[in-house]
């Protein structure tokens, strides 16, 4: 049963039975504002949650209470001293133990039950564009390097070289593969975003629009000129729901955590009859 289901049960408890809810008396300063009263009630409820989690099992609380009582001259083994602490209500009144109980309660309230598939699928549908995979392109690549000097090289300008090479490649009369190139190589397969960050968005756009199975270009980049022959474009299949789950879970968690903590605290408060005294 989920926390929400329990909250729903509490919410629908017949009024006649509400008197069975335990009484929680919260002492507040006389001048406390409504907001301060709310915060102190939350704090008191958190302490009750912390106690319900089992304070005797917490080494920090145990050490603190035992140390307090030994400082006060009490003797006996740890169990005896903890019994005494409980009788004296020290496990509620000690400020460090109090803070520790609140800490543990908050940790518990912030634990999120993994959202069910339906919840995440709804989120996925609502944010579908965010998880679309980019197109991947396989192509042959001939690179014509920028000349080292502004003057044309003996073989002519890069543009002239590219034009001649493009013509020869399309006629199938050359085996030249241009200049060595490190980032892509002669037969790359890359996503369009990867091409954009390697050689610029204009280069990626041009490859995205290039005809299939025909040499085309030259495409200018800051590295030089490029002739390309696109072999295939692949729209990757959507990642499986399981593979996307961490990203979906993160998005859900970011949006839900504050709401869930608030709702759980509200539900926990509903389990008590709260009496505020000034």
């Amino acid at each position: 049963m989920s926390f929400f289901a329990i909250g729903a049960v509490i919410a629908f408890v017949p009024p006649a039975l509400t008197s069975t809810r335990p009484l929680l008396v919260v002492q507040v300063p006389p001048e406390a504002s409504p907001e301060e009263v709310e915060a102190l009630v939350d704090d008191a409820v958190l302490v009750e949650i912390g106690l319900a989690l089992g304070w005797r099992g917490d080494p920090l609380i145990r050490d603190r209470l035992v140390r307090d009582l030994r400082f006060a001259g009490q003797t006996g083994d740890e169990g005896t001293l903890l019994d005494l602490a409980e009788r004296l209500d020290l496990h509620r009144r000690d400020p460090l133990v109090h803070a520790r109980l609140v800490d543990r309660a908050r940790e518990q309230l912030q634990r999120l039950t993994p959202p069910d598939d339906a919840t995440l699928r709804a989120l996925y549908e609502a944010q579908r564009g965010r998880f679309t995979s980019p197109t991947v392109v396989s192509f042959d690549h001939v690179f014509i390097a920028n000349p080292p000097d502004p003057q044309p090289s003996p073989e002519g300008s890069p543009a002239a070289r590219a034009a001649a090479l493009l013509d020869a490649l399309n006629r199938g009369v050359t085996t030249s593969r241009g200049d060595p190139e490190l980032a892509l190589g002669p037969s790359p397969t890359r996503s369009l975003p990867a091409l954009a960050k390697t050689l610029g968005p204009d280069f990626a756009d041009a490859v995205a629009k290039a005809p299939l199975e025909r040499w085309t270009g030259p495409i200018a980049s800051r590295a030089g000129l490029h002739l390309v022959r696109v072999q295939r474009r692949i729209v990757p299949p959507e990642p499986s729901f399981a593979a996307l789950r961490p990203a979906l879970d993160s998005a859900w968690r970011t949006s839900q955590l504050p709401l869930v903590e608030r709702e759980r605290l509200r539900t926990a408060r509903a389990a008590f009859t709260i009496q505020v005294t000034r």
Partner: protein
Amino acid sequence: MKRALLLACLVACGDDPPASRDTDLADAADTTDAADTTDVADTEAPHRCLTWSATRIPLFGDLHVHTRLSLDANLQGTRLGPDDAYRFAKGEEVGLQPYRPDGTALRHLRLTRPLDFAAVTDHAEFLGTVSACETPGTAAYDDPECVMFREEPDRAFGLLNLYVAASQDAVAYPALCGDDGAACAPGTRAAWSTIRQAAAAALDPSTACTFTSFIAYEWSGNPGTANLHRNVIFASDAVPEAPISYLEEPYPEGLWTRLRAACDALPGCDVLAIPHNSNLSSGLMFEAKKRDGSPIDRAFAEQQAAMEPLIEVMQHKGDSECLPGTPTADELCGFEKLPYDSLSTAALHIEVDPNPNDFIRDALGRGLGMLETLGVNPWRFGLVASTDTHLGTPGAVAETSYPGHGGAGAAARETLPSGLVDQVAFNPGGLVGVWAEENSRPSIFAALRRKETWGTSGPRITVRVFGGADLPADLCDTPDFAARAYAAGVPMGGLLTDPSTRAPRFFAIAQRDPGTGAPRGGGPSPSDADEPSAALERLQLVKGSFVGGTFKTEVIDLASADVDLPGADPATCAPPPGGRDRLCATWTDPSFDRNAPAFWYVRVLERPTCRWSTRQCLAAGVDCARPETVTDGFEGCCDSRYPKTIRERAWTSPIWWEPQR
């Protein structure tokens, strides 16, 4: 009744968050040290990316990133968390400190080119402290140290760092955490969970494989403020329940043992550690001593070689490649050197000459010597670089838009910097490049393991080097050089295994960072948002060998262009003239001695461009000849010890020769 009701609620709602899932997990268990692999990658190997390539693709990343979960970053006003850091790495704009009272940021930053991979490496030591002091209601929230954390962050930074600045046998948890750290343990686990979930969510699970994240943290060993820090990188989602910090394990060898033990108990887990900032280690990073003070032995050397295949050569806190004059003259070692020898001297700006024993080239040479004395080289390091940003901004390396990186550098917690954004000695840091079959965790982690990596001082210079006696001589002339070179030699990070007596040939090729903006030589002028880039000036091979008990080094210019031309004009910062888009060479080592262990690594230099400080001084109208223009915060503009221009660069992992014994 009350207790039972609450417990019922809590049991029902108290499921743990789902463990992050990683589709790569099944493949991530390959822990083979592939340093000696000479062949092209196995085309039959399982792979999940459509972009898989047998000859491997270059990928750029940042493996050293701090967010608000790190104590020092948090105290400097960083509000970006791991999720935000990964969003930034993937190209989203983020807001940076300082923040207005309404919570909006006064500065914004975006990468013009997203990274391919990143790892958030928050300091493990105070993960729980930050959480405890930031979360009202925690046991430690009202502890005086936490009050100081929130109200006097500068004092808190000093106080809390004292806990890790003691000698290694006197390391203690902050008082607010209790003697055994128990009060901060939940916070540590919560922060670790945040880091894991952020990494899982950032990973691209599609077959387009556009981005990879790694679960990681920083072990911040700091005895006497000597920097012994290591970034711990995990291969997959299989990681220990909590990071092993300097507070749990103050010795590197203890860290390796505990990491290995923790990983061995987890199916699919693998891990490596990357030392960084040896330049600030006060002579300790390469001290070669065990925890009892005795010299390291073969077992120690084997353990370090297995756990630490890489070292970070460059980052925000300076360059650690080599110190000019040690051990041999190399004026190009004079690059981004900090005038400090430890973290405290750096943080307090107390100038101290760097310790000559703290630099990597010398350590590589001493490692060759230990091969002779111990039979194992513990320091057969590959090279990487990263930023060490403390703003949660991985890959923010552009000299043109440097926001400072905080950490040991300047902070901008409450107000915008009135002068230079950082101490003039610091710099924007670098990037790590890897040659991997695909952009996935298993493939990149394997590249890190086999050291097929390089570091850059920021620009995306792409570089390859292969070695082998059978390498063809015409590789510079053929576009399919990579397949031929893999077939005939070993890549960067590899070990020459040629049994012949022939000298090895080296093939090196480097390509400039194309930068961003319009194609050069035509089209519109680059906009302010563009990252300019510079042409290449030199392609060098740095050789180290251990001959007759002596470490010898030499630097060979394999190719160069326009070395004598002036660099960028600091008065305008216009791009410098000359240089080449690509430099390539093959070279056979004429002095190869098969009885002498040796290494060779490539260093690529750009033409000199304006340093970040010069650009900011120019923008502010500082003219050192007119003192009235040197306003507060811009004094560094006129400090003659810091150059106006720099030669950005790249360093490859070495290729090694180890004689058979």
